[in-house]
């Protein structure tokens, strides 16, 4: 049985990371310094590690969540502001495993593009993807949400004006 210890360091506090090993979501452990750890055991000679960022607006029921948030926060007035840049992390690596493996992913500051991760490992590895990228899906959904929000505000203002004038 081979053991793998993965550390994610230097992540922005607003970022919720997702680590997939061989395509499966892996439990993350948060340490006291704000970093994350993954402890994984496998019989495989090779593993594929995929790192990404979790966005609320990418959830399956995002539209339902948005409606609930919008209503509860009184037409979105008391809602926390979303991260404007919507920068996603795309990291994909293939590692050839030894008996005990320590892998450190050190994240660069968030940027619209460029290299996302600096890697420290003694394993033989193949970097498949490593970059920051603006998530267009999240950005589009954010814009849609903002437009709907403004339209509802206008509709409410018109309705209030109409009822006051009556």
């Amino acid at each position, binding site marked *: 049985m081979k053991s793998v210890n993965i550390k994610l360091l230097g992540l922005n506090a607003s970022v919720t990371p997702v680590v997939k090993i061989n395509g499966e979501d892996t439990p993350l452990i948060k340490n006291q310094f704000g970093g994350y750890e993954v402890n994984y055991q496998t019989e495989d000679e090779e593993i594929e590690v995929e790192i990404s960022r979790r966005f609320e607006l990418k959830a399956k029921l995002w539209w339902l969540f948005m409606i609930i*948030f919008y209503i509860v926060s009184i037409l979105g007035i008391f809602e926390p502001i979303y991260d404007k840049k919507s920068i996603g992390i795309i990291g994909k690596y293939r590692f050839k495993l030894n008996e005990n493996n320590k892998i450190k992913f050190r994240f660069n500051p968030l940027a619209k593009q460029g290299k996302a991760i600096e890697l420290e490992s003694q394993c033989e590895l193949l970097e498949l993807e490593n970059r920051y990228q603006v998530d267009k899906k999240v950005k589009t959904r954010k814009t849609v949400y903002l437009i709907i929000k403004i339209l509802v505000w206008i509709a409410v203002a018109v309705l209030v004006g109409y009822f006051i004038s009556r």
Partner: protein
Amino acid sequence: MQAHTTPTKNAELKTFGRRMGKIFSNLLIFTLILCLCALLSFLSVVFVWLFGIVLIILTVGTIFAMVPDYFSRLSSASNVTSNIAEFFFDNFYIFVSLCLVCAIASIVLLALDKQNKHTGRIVLSSLAIVICIILIIIYATGGLQ
């Protein structure tokens, strides 16, 4: 070390709970201000009269020459503020219960978030509960009337 799993549905619900907690925490500030308004609006009536009297003293009474209906204006201003104060008094229990609901909901939802610590917001919510209890005691004993 704190453990938190990230299977998709579970993680989505956690994110949902965290955001909801923050919304309640933001709402809490607004409802707390409404509660405090019951106290402050009473003070505003006093403040209007105090301001009016200070103005008379500072102008050595010449304000009556400049504004002939000065007293009626002053009393109508204090009437408006007393109407506002009455509105806050009448709805005090609604505001205070809304504040308590928001505080409790935000504490529960933010405490459930194992990924990030929300110490500031949790402390604020706890403080709001204490203020609400004090205001209820003051209101129930007739201290605001």
